[in-house]
């Protein structure tokens, strides 16, 4: 990359590979990439673990040789599909980086409008822009090897994953819901405070980031494995929250798109 090539990293005397990685953004706020740059205390260690070939949020230089591609954002334009396919062809490993890449994220809120032409007119008016009718996750177009959930991703989790990649360890996302970490953090349950929360059905790993600040979970990391969404509806109802309140949250990031659609269908059928 430059003259200041860091010294070979070792773990217990064994040299560890320094994979060439690149960061890309499709339709997104690039907040997930910013998360990585945010924590200065570990930034240098993180940067020396990998050889960064492209990272718009952090550097000007750009190179096309990379083995791991972290792709943030959802696919909302046809040129993004082409770009994504090119990244896929280059990278040995493609990581869906953050909720937009994993599920469509906040962008996919537009998918529920029945009349895309009307939406475009409302939003762009007399300055039309070419966009697809729906915002889609990466896996609708290319094979995704690893998903890192969250809006935004949790820096500590990303560092742990990258460290494990370098050391050749298995990478596992938590299967349990947010409640596990929320209880470990000794938070007062949001339902006790009269707030709705998707913690019981949303995948953990965020260290109950939002509930720690007394803010109910919106499900950015998508469903936990074996999430009991049906019972969650009962819980919401019992605590006096409307179906729309729950749907607002289920639909916000796209991870629960299937569950939300089923819930809407059931409401219609009633």
């Amino acid at each position, binding site marked *: 990359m430059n003259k200041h090539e860091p010294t070979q990293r070792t773990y217990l005397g064994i040299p560890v590979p320094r994979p060439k990685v690149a960061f890309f953004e499709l339709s997104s706020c690039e907040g997930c990439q910013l998360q990585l740059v945010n924590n200065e205390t*570990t930034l240098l*260690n993180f940067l020396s673990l990998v050889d960064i070939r492209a990272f718009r949020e952090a550097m000007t230089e750009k190179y096309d040789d990379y083995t791991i591609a972290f792709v943030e954002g959802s696919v909302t334009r046809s040129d993004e599909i082409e770009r994504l396919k090119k990244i896929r062809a280059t990278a040995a490993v493609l990581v869906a980086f953050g909720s937009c890449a994993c599920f469509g994220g906040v962008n996919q809120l537009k998918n529920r409008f029945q009349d895309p032409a009307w939406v475009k007119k409302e939003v762009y008016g007399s300055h039309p822009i070419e966009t697809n009718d729906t915002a889609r996750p990466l896996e609708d177009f290319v094979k995704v090897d690893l998903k890192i959930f969250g809006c935004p991703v949790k820096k500590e989790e990303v560092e742990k994953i990258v460290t494990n990649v370098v050391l050749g360890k298995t990478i596992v996302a938590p*299967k*349990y819901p947010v*409640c596990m970490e929320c209880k470990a953090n000794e938070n*007062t*349950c949001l339902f006790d405070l009269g707030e709705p929360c998707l913690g*019981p059905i949303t995948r953990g790993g965020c260290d109950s980031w939002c509930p720690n600040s007394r803010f109910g979970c919106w499900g950015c990391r998508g469903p936990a494995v*074996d999430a*009991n969404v049906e019972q969650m509806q009962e819980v919401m109802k019992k605590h006096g929250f409307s179906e729309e309140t729950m749907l607002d949250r289920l639909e916000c990031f796209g991870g629960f798109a299937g569950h939300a659609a089923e819930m809407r269908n059931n409401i219609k059928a009633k």
Partner: protein
Amino acid sequence: MLFRTAEKTELKALFDMLVEKNTVVGPVQTDTDRMGKPLFAFEPVTDQAKLRLDYTTTRLPAKRYFLPFREDLATFTTDGRDWTKTIGYNIDRPYVLFGLHACDINALNKLDKVLMGPVYPMPYYAAKRKNMFIIGTDCRPQPFCFCRSMGADTVLHGFDLFLTDIGDKYFIEIQSAEAYEVAKDLRTETPTEADHMQFMRTVAEMNKLFTAHVDTTDLTKILDMEFQSPVWKQWGDKCLGCGTCSNVCPTCYCYGVEETVDVSLKKARKTKTLYSCNVVDFAEVAGGHNFRPERSTRLKYRYYHKHRGFVEAYEESLCVGCGRCGEACLAGITVPEVIASVRGEEQ
């Protein structure tokens, strides 16, 4: 067993004496729920006025001072090919636990049997448990309390001092030499016959307040018979699989261990995290097979461990009837209802 009585004002003297040289942990109000009811937690407390011995219950048990949710079993530093392992039991001082109810002390006694047993005592637990000074206190049974059904409404050992509010004074039980030393500096008196009567009246009044019950008669046998009962599926359908019941349980001790290498590659740690048998991957093994993929099976096994397996092994239940799991369960699954349904009783 030594019995004494003391004027109510001596409580402050006791607290001040202990807090001077120790970290005191006790029930304090930490929040107010949406109905305006106070929520309590065991927290370090320095001002006796903040100590709420009249607390109903805490959302989380005092277990976290003995079995923290997360703790490092070992940390490692690497230097070239060499590495150094450091083991700490994660306790830097003795604690005074001021105001545990009988159920919570009984919970510790049950944990002792598992974690300080003769074969593989767990030093991380033992180091904390042996450095605790525990003051028990009487309570007012709440609608969710069924400790009496579980034989955990009174406590015989596992504490240093026990205070029972008998109206105008405290009836004090002294259980340890340390407690004797502490009580020596208080103004106490030998209980009179009238004090004994008042103590018995207080206990009888308390017993009348129980509304929740669990019938434990022949329960291990009934659980054996009803292993295939359809009620497990019904409760499993309701279960969120969120693990909250275990996390608020004063006796759940199951855990997972994870080894992580720091991003610097110069440090590593082995971390123990309390886990729950109701969580989806609790019984998932290497290779990916899951022995309990259904929520109903997982929920059932939690009941079988508490109310059957542990009873077979230790001749007592692993449940103390504190009712926290039922109170915290968003799906409204409570022990009295589950056991009654297994017994074929209408609720």
